[in-house]
């Protein structure tokens, strides 16, 4: 079933056109990898899916983003949308507060105040993000005392705590060491069961390891989109082949 349907997306930052007529469907409970060289628009497109580009001044978007058939840019509550479509960023960005408060921030935002409920949500989110064992004894400690890899998993837990339907990940492991990266990749395979995951990545091995579908972008255009196996073993487009074989990018 299609979770997201993108119809003829075009995007400008002031006068600079970043995305050129993108059409694609994103199926529920799959991992979709966005690949392509820097500046190809993959992060920009990702940030359209939860309307985080609204914060960028001079950003103009045309086309339709349908989430479960509804246009997310037409009269939708942005905050509700962002609850449904969570995001993990390139650099771990825990708030300078305790581990507990970091996770509880989202649920509290959406009106949960009961201590008992929050305790349960925090534990569940930390378990789902496979970081419970490392943090259960120091929930009151500052989140900034964690290592980079732990911080990123904490951010994943924070995103999961609001029970999103889609999880966007913007190069979530580019700032991490291989061990932490492996942990996050393992985690994503688990997450797929419950969530739809869209990940932008520079790391093509990562795309082949974890994703079901791969989309290749170049200069703001969607060049190739198909199952990861097909895209990486027999790409239809020459530019895509050049990129994945390492001839440029």
């Amino acid at each position, binding site marked *: 079933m299609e979770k997201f349907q993108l119809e003829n997306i075009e995007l400008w930052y002031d006068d600079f056109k970043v995305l050129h007529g993108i059409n694609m469907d994103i199926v529920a409970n799959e991992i979709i990898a966005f690949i392509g060289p820097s500046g190809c628009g993959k992060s920009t497109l990702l940030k359209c899916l*939860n309307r*985080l580009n609204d*914060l960028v*001044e001079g950003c103009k978007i045309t086309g339709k983003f349908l989430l479960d058939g509804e246009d997310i840019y037409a009269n939708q509550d942005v*905050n*509700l*949308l*962002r*609850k449904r479509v*969570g*995001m993990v*960023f390139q*650099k771990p*960005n*825990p*708030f*300078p*507060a*305790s581990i507990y408060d970091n996770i509880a*921030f*989202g649920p509290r*935002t*959406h009106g949960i105040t009961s201590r008992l409920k929050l305790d349960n949500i925090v534990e569940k989110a930390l378990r789902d993000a496979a970081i419970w064992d490392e943090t259960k004894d120091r929930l009151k400690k*500052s989140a*900034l005392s964690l290592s980079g890899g732990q911080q990123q998993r904490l*951010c994943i837990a*924070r*995103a999961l705590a*609001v029970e999103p339907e889609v999880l966007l990940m913007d190069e979530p492991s580019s700032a991490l060491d291989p061990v932490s990266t492996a942990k996050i990749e393992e985690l994503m395979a688990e997450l797929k069961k419950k969530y739809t995951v869209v990940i932008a990545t520079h790391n093509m091995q990562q795309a082949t390891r974890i994703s079901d579908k791969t989309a290749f972008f170049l200069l703001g255009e969607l060049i190739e989109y198909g199952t990861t196996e097909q895209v990486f073993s027999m790409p239809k487009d020459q530019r895509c082949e050049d990129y994945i074989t390492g001839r440029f990018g």
Partner: protein
Amino acid sequence: MRENIITDIRRAALLPRRTDAFVRRFLRTIEDAVLCAAPWLAAFFTFGVLLFLVGYILVNGIPYLQLSLFALKYNTKNASLLPALITTVFMVALSLFIAVPPGLFTAIYLVEYATRGNRLVQLVRMTTETLAGIPSIVYGLFGALFFVSWLGWGYSLLAGAFTLSIMILPLIIRTAEESLNSVPDTYREGAFGLGAGRVRTVFRVVLPAAAPGILAGVILAVGRIVGETAALIYTAGTVAQVPRTPLASGRTLAVHMYALSGEGLYTGQAYATAVVLLIVVIGINTLSAALVKRIEKG
């Protein structure tokens, strides 16, 4: 160029050509020594001046630190500074109460709400910069004309506090603006990404993260209030008793000092007041440093 200098030095010292290397090494040693000594000397000089100043005040003031200086009522016999100390506390509290909320909210508006290239923002920036450069006596004159005469508050705590508020407002806006700006955008993105609105993001995530910097600005403002005389003499007056109402006149420690040393009868007591003022300022700084540390720890 350098080689020429080396040759010149060798020739002047009547040394043979083969000693070039020696001269070069000698020059470098001197250069290193000078470059190494300069920062030390500068630091020592700065510290020395401060030490001399504090020492001078202590030596002159401590002998006059008697119990009679801390009598609740001032009279010409005891030259008590306690009323001035209490007035100072009132003045600081009242000024901050008036200036911090608008200053902080202005900064929040400038950083979090205003769009880029907004005319109002440029206007506010220009105004704060201009206000920051005005000598305090001008504020005093304005306060005297506006609050004291025109509004008819007379020489009063309130008139003084309002005058000081206008004076410290630019400082508070600028420091708060800077500390809000230094909060990484990734925090804001993180909060927005979880579905938090602008207000919640600002008050629950950005403001706590900026709190130490904002507090540092407030401490600077306290320093200016405590040290101010010119703006107060014509607005709060120089009555040396504890003011009973906000509309009563009162003198802060700095004004008290100015009055005592101006009268020339109690120069020793003026120094003693300086000692107390010094202790107050050091106390505030220590306290705020501890506070900032606690906030930063979370």
